């Protein structure tokens, strides 16, 4: 992307009194590997087409106002850099996905330091590779799902790095569809109408150290495999269909070191197999984990389950998942041999959670003496909950995770 340095390139300035007062004209006139430098000011332009290797750079955040007319910047060439622009008023359409910046079939691009406001779609990458989306701030004004777009959307793209972006008030903060080998890290995605992060049919991706907060439905990871999720924070996703994380048809993945705090459901798992959950913290969620069935060969180890209303809910009597060496704040066993592991197995599924699954209104009886009594009797002799679902080696003390 910095290949332009080796070729003698010139800088074209854009300002009200320069040779070029419009960005579109300047871009058209530029040669390959030139730099178009946009001075501070307001430019009312749409459909700026970058079809050659170029650096488009703003100085002191010049404003590009699309006046709700349509797409603003479209990139169709390799080696393009867009840097330091303030883009507002992207047009909304029900037939075309207008974006503030769209990259089509390009390689080696860099999109950084942009501020996007009043947008439909923010940064839209389609069929592109080896790019980087870095340090952008996307603030939408979405209220309904049907007439809003996504902050950063990847479609059939590969090897993209999405780093240090702040995204809020759009439909999906980050949306990946058919996007493989991507790295998503250190982003903050909050207050979005639907999902903070949304994965569909995307394999081999890593997301780490992101914060997803107060989104309509949390984070959804669907129909993908070999996803690695490390050290993310999922917080305050409340509602009847809100999850810290929703897993559907996810296989062979790793979920490590994440924090799920005060969500209605920490992780909702459906049809997901061979996933390792380790070193996560589940703190004060309604349900730490809700398993909806068809989940096989998953391993839950060394997680902290702290003060959740329910640690685990299962809707079937079958269990093929393993729970080992977790710390459960509701564990009431003892440790006579002082090896730090409880001598009595812990049963994370309570009878009452089974009752609530059947009759949701019964939630109002949570923490009553009667439910404690029925939970206790179920604990002594399991009838309704899976017999073999237990943590044989529950930890006595909260696990201190080593996170980097």
């Amino acid at each position, binding site marked *: 992307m910095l290949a332009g340095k080796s070729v003698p390139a010139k800088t074209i300035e854009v300002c009200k009194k320069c040779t070029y007062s419009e960005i579109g004209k300047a871009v058209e006139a530029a040669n390959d590997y030139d730099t178009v430098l946009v001075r501070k000011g307001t430019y009312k332009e749409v459909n700026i087409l970058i079809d050659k290797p170029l650096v488009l750079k703003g100085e002191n955040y010049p404003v590009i106002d699309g006046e709700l007319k349509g797409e603003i910047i479209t990139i169709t060439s390799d080696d393009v850099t867009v840097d330091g622009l303030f883009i507002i008023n992207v047009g909304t359409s029900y037939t075309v996905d207008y974006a503030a910046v769209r990259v089509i079939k390009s390689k080696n691009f860099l999109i950084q330091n942009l501020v996007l406001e009043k947008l439909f779609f923010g940064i839209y990458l389609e069929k592109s590779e080896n790019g980087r989306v870095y340090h952008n701030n996307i603030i939408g004004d979405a209220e309904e799902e049907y007439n809003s777009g996504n902050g950063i959307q990847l479609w059939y793209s590969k090897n993209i790095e999405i780093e240090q972006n702040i995204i809020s008030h759009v439909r999906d903060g980050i949306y990946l569809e058919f996007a493989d080998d991507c790295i998503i890290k250190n982003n903050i995605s909050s207050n979005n109408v639907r999902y903070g992060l949304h994965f569909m049919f995307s394999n081999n991706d890593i997301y780490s150290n992101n914060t997803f907060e107060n989104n309509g439905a949390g984070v959804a990871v669907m129909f993908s495999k070999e996803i690695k999720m490390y050290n993310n924070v999922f917080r305050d996703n409340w509602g009847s269909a809100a999850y810290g994380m929703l897993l559907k048809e996810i296989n062979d993945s790793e979920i490590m070191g994440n924090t799920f705090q005060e969500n209605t459901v920490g992780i909702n798992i459906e049809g997901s197999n061979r996933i390792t959950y380790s070193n996560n913290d589940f703190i004060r969620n*309604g349900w730490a984990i809700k398993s909806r069935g068809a989940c096989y060969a998953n391993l839950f180890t060394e997680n902290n389950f702290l003060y959740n209303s329910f640690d685990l809910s299962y809707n079937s009597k079958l269990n093929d998942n393993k729970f080992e060496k977790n710390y459960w704040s509701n564990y009431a066993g003892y440790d006579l041999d002082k090896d730090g592991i409880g001598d009595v197995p812990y049963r994370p599924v309570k009878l009452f959670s089974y009752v609530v699954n059947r009759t*949701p209104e019964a939630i109002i009886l949570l923490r009553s003496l009667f439910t404690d009594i029925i939970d206790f009797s179920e604990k002594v002799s399991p009838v309704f909950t899976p017999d073999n679902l237990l943590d044989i080696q529950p930890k006595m003390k909260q696990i201190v995770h080593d996170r980097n």
Partner: protein
Amino acid sequence: MLKILKYSFYDLMRSRWSYVYFVFYLVLGFVLLFLNNNVSKAVITLMNVIIILVPLIGTIFGVMYYYNSKEFTGLLLAQPIKRSLIFLGQYLGVALSLSMSLIIGLGIPFILYGIFRSDAIWDFSLLLITGTFLTLIFTALSFNIALSNENRIKGFGYAILLWLFMAVIYDGIFLMSLMIFEDYPLDTFSLTATMFNPIDLSRVLILLKLDISALMGYTGALFQKFFGTNFGMFLSIGILILWVVIPAWFIERKANRKDF
């Protein structure tokens, strides 16, 4: 009435039982804080204890006090004092001294462990408020039982039965009916049924603080309104006040009509 209230109050303050009660809460508070070493977690455990124990002690104590001071009541009745004032005074004397034992007994350990510096202060004050309400309600109910039963054994029996019913049996029947009628929309029913049991009502007040994330999981619009806004909080407190006023009014009515 104030004189009688004062008399009952001081009488109880001098009696061993309110000290026992006070020391019990003091020890409970310290032990919980010592074991949990965390103010918020101790508050959660305490909530479970208070919801069950405070009604039990309120009922037993109320019945006991009424029967024990029967002779003195007889003496007072011979004086030119309004009947209702005698009984309401006694009732408030008992209820207030019990509430005081609760508040001071739990207050001391939590203040020493730094409740004012922790973010659990709201949960803790809510706990004391519901505890006080439960004392007021269950003492009033027990006075009603004692007033209508001359036989002590019967009175005690009914008092314990009342507690057992409110604390356990009611929820059992409630849950059963929810499961039997699960095909019907039940959110109005479940909220109404909660209102008719002060223990459930106090529990819901506490749930609003502790388990709001789980409660938001249910889709019913009424639930959303009840739990999602301050509406639930105000309604619960309003109904708790009704639960104090109505039994107290019954004490007055019964006292006026009773033939001593």
